[in-house]
């Protein structure tokens, strides 16, 4: 066989597809790159018990082949081989939640009617048994005419059997009589099959019903959610600190080492001032990004995220959105790119567009480096009572500003540009589950790797280009190098525009390369000040102190306010263009966000100056 066979995992949302995918492919999986691809495609290779290597795709969860969201459309097209550029899967593995058969068998029948070689994974049989539900897979197998393999993805149970069934699936055909059923008949049949498969059903002692009584309590629930979010943001700052200090130490040790082994000259300057100062100043934020993603992944894996959406729905409905928008928006706190891609699960197009347009206002992890450096330099490290740090409080205020800004923008958009019927909120609340360490580790690794790759590619390139632009042409004796450089001249032009909002030339300079990614602002400030410092001082003074010496507090606050709004991220613009099929909305997004950033920074600067800060 010339190419390896393609296996597609397909099923309802919350059937445990991703856990099964992780269990089968382990670390040998990839999420396709963001730019240039039309769908987030999770795929990985694994070897069947027969020794045959196959490629497996994890398709987005769907309720049927008649799509009600862009996400479902992908699934529907791929399984029918109608997705451009994507080979038709050779074998379908339908994943069913054992404790929700009545529901999941409806879509399963529809998939079987395609007549493709199919294997069914009766997943999470352990959870069903915990709920007192014992099933007979053979009954289902007879009814459906395809192999039904009981699996517990998280405990790796049934995986070998599943592999064997996949290997043998080529010659099979779907059972007769399934093709011509309508939706209602399918539901009746699903009900009958689910009932027939039950061996025993005892009184349920459902843990999640009890958890829901607490977490969805109309009064206590929202308070718990708010407290959790506050803990997340404090943790991002407090827990990451020792790790950040360690990384900073390693960077300066590396810089010292390079200084000691290389002769003074351009190459040494490029390595220490350019690459280590620039890329290093961004790398040190990896711990914070990992911690933030860890919380988000845990909320998703445990099933709490859907509850959070439920609790937020009322609030979101005030600005014309629904609880469904909460999940993409919360993901946007880590990064707007997965956030914007997660809007595919929103069925209403105007609802979805509004969510995409406000997603960049959520404080993403790329802003953290900027916030952290400025806060660290200008906000004193003291408490304001009850053990709440002033620095953490300022950070919290920045996050809140973004959220309030987003809500106001949504409110305006829903009454003007994305006007339409008030959107609804329909969503399954999955069962609670303990997040599994391995799934968490894979998710964190993928997110961390994307960040590191950015640091290694975009940020590395931009840093080197900036260093060159800062170092050439060489300054005449007595003249500042930055003033003489190409970058300095460019920044002087931009400085005229941003002067009314309190920005100096160095700040203007950092904004140019930060168009690539926000965190580059930090690396470019680090490179700029490193280039301009006298050699002997350089090692002793860190970026924070350099900033403190050259900026006033109102300037620093204005810089923070700018970054609450400014859409400085090429990847976000690219993903918006892709998800909205054109340049209209990304251009709109750029325009409105830069306008807001300019106004917010200006207002902050002048109010702070008037207040005598």
């Amino acid at each position, binding site marked *: 066989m010339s190419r390896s066979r393609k296996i597609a995992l397909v099923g309802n949302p919350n059937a445990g597809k991703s856990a099964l995918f992780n269990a089968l492919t382990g670390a040998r999986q990839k999420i396709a790159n963001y730019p240039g691809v039309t769908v987030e495609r999770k795929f990985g290779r694994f070897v069947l018990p027969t020794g045959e290597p196959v490629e497996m795709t994890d398709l987005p969860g769907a309720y049927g082949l008649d799509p009600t969201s862009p996400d479902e459309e992908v699934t529907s097209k791929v399984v029918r081989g109608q997705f451009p550029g994507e080979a038709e899967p050779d074998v379908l593995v339908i994943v069913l939640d054992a404790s929700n058969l009545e*529901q999941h068998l409806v879509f399963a029948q529809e998939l079987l009617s395609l007549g493709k070689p199919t294997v069914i994974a009766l997943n999470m049989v352990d959870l069903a048994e915990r709920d007192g539900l014992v099933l007979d897979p053979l009954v289902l197998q007879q009814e459906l005419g395809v192999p039904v393999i009981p699996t517990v993805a998280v405990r790796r149970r049934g995986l070998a059997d599943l592999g064997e069934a996949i290997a043998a699936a080529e010659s099979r055909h779907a059972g007769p009589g399934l093709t011509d059923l309508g939706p209602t008949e399918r539901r009746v049949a699903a009900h009958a099959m689910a009932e027939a498969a039950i061996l025993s059903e005892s009184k349920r002692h459902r843990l999640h019903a009890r958890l829901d009584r607490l977490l969805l309590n*109309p*009064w206590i629930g929202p308070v718990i959610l708010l407290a959790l979010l506050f803990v997340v943001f404090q943790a991002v700052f407090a827990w990451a600190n020792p790790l950040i200090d360690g990384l900073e130490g390693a960077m300066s040790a590396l810089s010292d080492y390079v200084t000691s082994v290389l002769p003074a000259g351009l190459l040494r300057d490029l390595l220490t001032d350019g690459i280590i100062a620039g890329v290093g100043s961004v790398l040190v934020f990896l711990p914070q990004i990992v911690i933030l993603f860890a919380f988000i992944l845990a909320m998703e894996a445990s099933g709490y995220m859907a509850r959070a959406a439920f609790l937020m729905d009322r609030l979101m409905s005030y600005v014309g959105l629904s609880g469904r928008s909460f999940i993409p928006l919360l993901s946007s706190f880590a990064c707007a790119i997965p956030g914007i891609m997660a809007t595919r699960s929103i069925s209403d197009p105007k609802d979805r567009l509004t969510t995409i347009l406000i997603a960049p206002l959520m404080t993403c992890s790329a802003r953290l480096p900027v916030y952290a450096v400025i806060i660290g330099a200008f906000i004193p490290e003291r408490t304001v009572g009850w053990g709440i740090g002033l620095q953490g409080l300022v950070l919290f205020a920045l996050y809140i500003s973004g959220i309030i800004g987003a809500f106001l923008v949504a409110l305006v958009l829903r009454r003007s540009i994305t006007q339409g019927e008030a959107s609804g909120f329909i969503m399954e*609340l999955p069962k609670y589950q303990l997040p599994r360490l391995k799934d968490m580790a894979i998710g964190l690794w993928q997110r961390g790797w994307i960040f590191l790759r950015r640091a290694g590619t975009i940020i590395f390139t931009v840093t080197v280009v900036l260093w060159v632009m800062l170092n050439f042409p060489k300054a005449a004796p007595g003249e500042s190098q930055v003033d003489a450089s190409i970058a300095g001249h460019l920044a002087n032009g931009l400085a005229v525009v941003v002067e009314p909002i309190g920005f100096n030339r160095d700040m203007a300079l950092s904004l140019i390369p930060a168009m690539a990614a926000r965190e580059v602002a930090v690396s470019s400030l680090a490179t700029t000040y490193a280039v301009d410092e006298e050699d002997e001082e350089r090692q002793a003074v860190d970026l924070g102190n350099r900033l403190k010496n050259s900026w006033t507090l109102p300037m620093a606050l204005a810089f923070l306010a700018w970054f609450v709004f400014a859409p400085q991220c090429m990847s976000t613009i690219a993903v918006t263009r892709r998800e909205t099929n054109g340049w209209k909305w990304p251009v709109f997004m750029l325009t409105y966000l830069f306008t807001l950033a300019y106004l917010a920074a200006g207002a902050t600067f002048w109010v702070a100056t008037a207040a005598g800060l």
Partner: protein
Amino acid sequence: MTLDLLPLGKTARIVAVDWSVLVPEEARRLRALGLEEGAKVSLAHRGVFGGKDPLAIAVGRMIVALRRAHAAAMSVELLSEVSA
């Protein structure tokens, strides 16, 4: 009685749904989740901070969140208490 007025914890059967008042996309999604004529449902949770929206409906072994407007389109009849 419509589904949005069902007392918390009581089990009922959906006897009729006025699909015409629902957005077609949402109607399809509700059907896909099994919320249609004949389904046995109960109201598990209602609202936040004393509000009446959204609702969490138990249907089979699944919990579905929806808005009051959707539930109001569904007429239900109470079932006698057997098991929740």
